[in-house]
């Protein structure tokens, strides 16, 4: 069974990849990949009080979602959404576990409210006034694939445009040693059931047993393997090249996702 949708906008932020246009140059081989710490912008769509409360995971998700919706020329409030992440806010989780391990166990109510896995989706809906449905997934290392399948199924089943955001941030020690995500990486896509002037490419996806693709650049392959949302990189490379083609993404142990790309331009 093959699912498909039109890609109307992309957002990307990761180590040495500041946004989709700059990532395009790197992924298409025009510029070399130079790893550097991910710089997360302040989420200006949030009211000042909310902005102060948000951690890295919210800043990351909001940044890539805004880039994708703005490129698609879509009002975020009209889009359904799928948020997928392998973990929540790592720093926040550490602070809560630390406080609970000490006598007194006094934990911050704001930290607790922000500990929900759907914090980014919640802040996004507050910041954009989106009352549309949003789903929030976790599939550990398979989180990008899980988000993509959920998003494509949603677009196909309900014939509605949708925002997909997949993102991961790092844990501080001591959790970092157990879950060594090195830095923040996020990708967002606006997917639509029908072709429009905004459409960049037609994307199709189906499950396969075939082996998944690696990045040929060693540093990009390290990134792909280290951060779950970066499992999207082989697909993003095809999009950056603006070439028709196929790519197989890592997903769950026994199954992978074969992606087909047909550029619209």
């Amino acid at each position, binding site marked *: 069974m093959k699912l498909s949708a039109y890609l109307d906008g992309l957002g990307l932020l990761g180590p040495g990849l500041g946004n989709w246009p700059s990532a395009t140059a790197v992924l298409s081989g025009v510029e070399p990949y130079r790893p550097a710490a991910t710089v997360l912008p302040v989420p200006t769509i949030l009211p000042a009080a909310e902005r102060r409360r948000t951690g890295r995971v919210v800043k990351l998700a909001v940044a890539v979602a805004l880039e994708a919706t703005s490129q698609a020329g879509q009002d975020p409030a009209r889009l359904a959404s799928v948020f997928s992440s392998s973990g929540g806010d790592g720093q926040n989780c550490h602070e809560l*576990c630390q406080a609970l391990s000490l006598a007194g166990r006094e934990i911050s109510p704001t930290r607790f409210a922000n500990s929900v896995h759907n914090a980014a989706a919640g802040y996004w809906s507050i910041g954009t006034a989106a009352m549309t449905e949003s789903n929030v997934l976790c599939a550990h290392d398979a989180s990008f694939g899980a988000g993509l399948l959920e998003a494509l199924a949603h677009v196909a089943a309900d014939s509605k445009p949708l925002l997909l955001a997949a993102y991961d941030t790092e844990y501080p020690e001591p959790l970092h040693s157990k879950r060594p995500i090195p830095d923040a990486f996020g990708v967002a896509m606006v997917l639509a059931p029908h072709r429009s002037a905004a459409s960049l490419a037609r994307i199709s996806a189906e499950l396969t047993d075939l082996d998944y693709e690696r990045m040929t650049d060693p540093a990009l392959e390290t990134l792909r393997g280290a951060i779950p949302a970066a499992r999207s990189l082989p697909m993003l490379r095809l999009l950056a090249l603006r070439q028709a083609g196929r790519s197989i993404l890592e997903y769950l142990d026994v199954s992978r996702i074969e992606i087909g790309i047909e550029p619209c331009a």
Partner: protein
Amino acid sequence: MKPLVLENFTATSCIGRGLAETLASLRGQRSGLKICEFETVDISTHIGEVSGVDAQRLPAALHRFDCRNNRLAELALQQDGFFESVQRAAERWGRRRVGVFLGTSTAGILQTELAYRERDPVTGALPASFEYGSTHNSFSVADYVRQRCRLEGPAAVVSSACASSAKVFGSARRMIEVGLIDAAVVGGVDSLCLTTLYGFHSLQLSSSAPCRPFDVARDGISIGEAAAFGLLERMPDGLDSGSVLLLGVGESNDAYHMSAPHPEGRGARIAMQAALAAAGLEPGDIDYINLHGTGTPSNDRSESQAVTSVFGPTTPCSSTKGATGHTLGAAGALEAVISVLAIRHGLMPGGAPTTQIDPTLTAHYIKESRSAPIARVLSNSFGFGGTNCSLIFGRAG
């Protein structure tokens, strides 16, 4: 949406292991809430604890998944022939054609909380025995159930706070409808941990008494734990008239506040209306509403307004959280199972231990369990972040 058949279902919470005990407790309006003596917790509150979770063992090959949350999942999988019915579905449809979509809010975070007490005094490192991916990570429960049942279809955890395991019905519905799978194990598993007990306490949202949804003196939630599962399948050609169907799913966001519901229940109203529209039903077609009904002053006020704005003041409704506690990420699936039991057995469960209904709440809240023919039930689940989901179940015949 195209209706889906609920081939089998089960629930385990503080009011019972499996359906028979759960039904008997609901009929008798027995609450499973008791004073909190969980772990080293020193908060004055009541909880809905499932007995025997600590004694539950996982198969040796899946030992790395060992934690309270997965033990509770295993315990529940073994009730009501659920595990066996999943195996039959896998044979019927093929293992690649059965998905797993489960809701949880905290998964096995208790393992991490305990591990933080055992950090190396010099390096600060967590103990070597601590397994992050198969216990702490939210996906661990879906991964456990998937590997336990040897399913190979798409899998994910939905973690959107207290609406998580209602929203899994939506994920499964979409994937079945577009033909990616033919069946799915859906459900929710959430277990007691310090994060939620101390967290709701810090927000002053938990009651020291057993929670009393819709009561004039309600003052907060009682946290519970539960595991509930359903086996959803695409409609067969011939259908048993005793079958129960998933008829509608409606989802929305409040876009209002991270930890407080919209005062007039704006998002809740949209979710209920969307579920009715998906099912092609009118408000008058719903015989009973299983409320989110947490027992906080703000939730019950906003939910009552939302319910009344859609259904008017006459549709009977109640919250079963006074019996089970608020099982957070498992609440949607647990209350889906209770809704299906209501249909199967013609039971509107009374909302014990509420004694005096808040006169300012206009929804038709029922305190006493009633026997009545029930064709269709709507179940509400709302969560932090302003996430809302309503499900509609109905009899096939």
